[in-house]
């Protein structure tokens, strides 16, 4: 039992990765060669649970082969695709959520890692539309934590044009007399003032780079909150922002604090310039001496 606990702790500690990293201006992730999307017909009307309701194969520890789309291995890999799409296509007017996993498959790639193939639906939050995607996620199994690699093909991802809105926002922020700043997005009650929503969206896109980078088969990242986002002086036609973001890892239930420096323009999208994990303020809570 002692060994089991050590394994559990080791897994949990493996989640957080290196505390300080500096990232060069973002290199584009591997892009997909178009391949035909053969999306199998699923029980759309009757709901997600119908697909695999009977037995659960004892597969989950090292999930390989055909995956139950409702089980955590496929769900975690699919969440990584969400983060990838957000880094790639996200903007103040385009954000993604995972809607459903339709099917999944996993196979070991020798000793180097495990590859997942997924058919999923993603939800574009701002236009409230859903679309299907095929994706591949490769989780490297190395000595140290490495980022997953993702390829995704979504049919109609960029159908709804956000160019005009992005351009308008960009001009507005560039011309600001005073630099923008906002805190606690969303606030404790889930509220975000409409005029700072674009800042929240930018914070989410930038944070997705971290969530993507830090993801593994043993994590499930979501945004917890943008604690602070501050506009800095525009540089090279890029709007620049400093951001303190809180990420929630569902598996460990921990809240991770990260500091980010990022740039945005409609032409270039979001580019993370620096990222750094902040230690959580443990000493702030030190109990009084009870001797």
């Amino acid at each position, binding site marked *: 039992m002692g060994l089991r606990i050590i394994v559990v702790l080791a897994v949990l500690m493996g989640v957080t990765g290196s505390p300080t990293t500096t990232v060069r201006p973002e290199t584009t992730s591997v892009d997909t060669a178009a391949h035909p999307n053969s999306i199998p017909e699923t029980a759309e009307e009757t709901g997600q649970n119908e697909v695999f309701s009977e037995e659960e194969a004892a597969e989950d520890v090292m999930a390989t082969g055909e995956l139950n789309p*409702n089980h955590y291995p496929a769900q975690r890999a699919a969440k990584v695709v969400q983060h990838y799409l957000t880094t790639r296509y996200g903007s103040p007017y385009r954000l993604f*959520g995972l809607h459903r996993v339709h099917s999944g498959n996993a196979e070991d790639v020798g000793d180097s890692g495990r590859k997942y193939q997924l058919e999923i639906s993603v939800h574009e939050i701002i236009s409230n539309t859903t679309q299907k995607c095929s994706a591949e996620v490769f989780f490297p199994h190395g000595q140290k934590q490495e980022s997953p690699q993702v390829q995704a093909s979504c049919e109609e991802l960029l159908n709804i044009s956000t160019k005009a809105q992005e351009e308008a926002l960009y001009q507005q922020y560039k011309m600001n007399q005073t630099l923008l700043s906002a805190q606690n997005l969303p606030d404790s009650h889930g509220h975000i003032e409409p005029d700072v929503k674009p800042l929240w969206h930018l914070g989410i896109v930038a944070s997705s780079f971290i969530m993507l980078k830090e993801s593994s088969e043993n994590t499930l990242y979501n945004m917890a909150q943008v604690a602070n986002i501050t506009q800095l002086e525009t540089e090279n036609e890029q709007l620049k922002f400093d951001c303190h973001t809180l990420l929630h890892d569902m598996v460990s239930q*921990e809240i991770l604090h990260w500091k980010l420096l990022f740039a945005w323009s409609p032409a270039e999208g979001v580019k993370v310039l620096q990222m750094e994990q902040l230690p959580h303020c443990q000493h702030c809570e030190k109990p009084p001496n009870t001797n």
Partner: protein
Amino acid sequence: MLNSVGLSFMLLLSAVGAAIVERVGYDYYKYHPMPEITNWMTQMEKDYPGVVSIVNYGKSYEGRTISLLKIGLNTGEKKKAIWMDCGIHAREWIAPAFCQYFVSQILQTYKTDPKMEQMMKDMDFYVTPVLNVDGYIYSWKDNTTRLWRKNRSPGPAGCDCYGTDLNRNFEANWGTIGVSFDCCSQTYCGTKPVSEPETQSVMNFLASRKDDFLCFLTIHSYSQLLLIPFGHPDFTANNYDELMEVGLGAAEAIRKIHGMEYIVGTSPAVLYANSGSSRDWARMQGIPLSYTFELRDNGTFGFELPEDQIKPTCEEAYSGALHIITYTHDKTFNGAVVTAAATLWTVLLAVGVTGANLI
């Protein structure tokens, strides 16, 4: 005589006025701090005498009372019961909101819905709106405490951090998987099983009554899941098929309300393995239908679910909970009705026969 009529009329008016003020006064679609929830509980007991009573069943680490509302149409007998608790994790604010909504719903519908009236006659509902009182209050303190999860007991000697994860602290394969022994961790399971006063309160209340309880629902957020026992991958509940079937029925009922998908399964299958959960402990005590509800959303807002989603979340979760409760009731009581009827006929026949003989 006119004076007494006038006096009665004035009393009637004030009673009506008071009732209207109460109904308009409490907003179930906003998040409420602990003092408001406590006041609301007192008000419920006042407004529904003989139907709602407050039971104080424990104390938190910081010495606050842990209370539940016992709701049922009093038949004067020992009754079967349904358990629901909310807010075992402080930051999951939608959960206490749901418990309050659930209470208001059953109290509203039993007057006009014969099925609900029957269920309230046959069973008592024990609803704890906020189990982790200290944690919940702490999460309301300021912007830096909003995402607190655990209770507020200090760590063991030498520890720099507060709090035990109450949902890892129950005596159910305690400390075996999905926990941390680091006292600063969000899943710290405590110094030993049931080390925490909040856990003890639940255990003490239920342990002596476990044969009465048919159903145990523990409400959390977020992820949109209905989780069944057990959290340990090596253990399967002997009524797994029933738990899945009823759970899938509940998920379908949820989907019909606002189209939201809730995935059904064991924790190790659909979320992660864990041990020491209240759901598992309840199942091990023999309570057959034991579920963890993980409410909205799927990560867009997470713990800070906007208040404009309280209503739809509560409506769908109510539908799901009601499905499970109705199944539990019908499984237990339709059979009993048949038995009672058969007994009655047997008695009547016996009387008839002997009566005939006597004549």
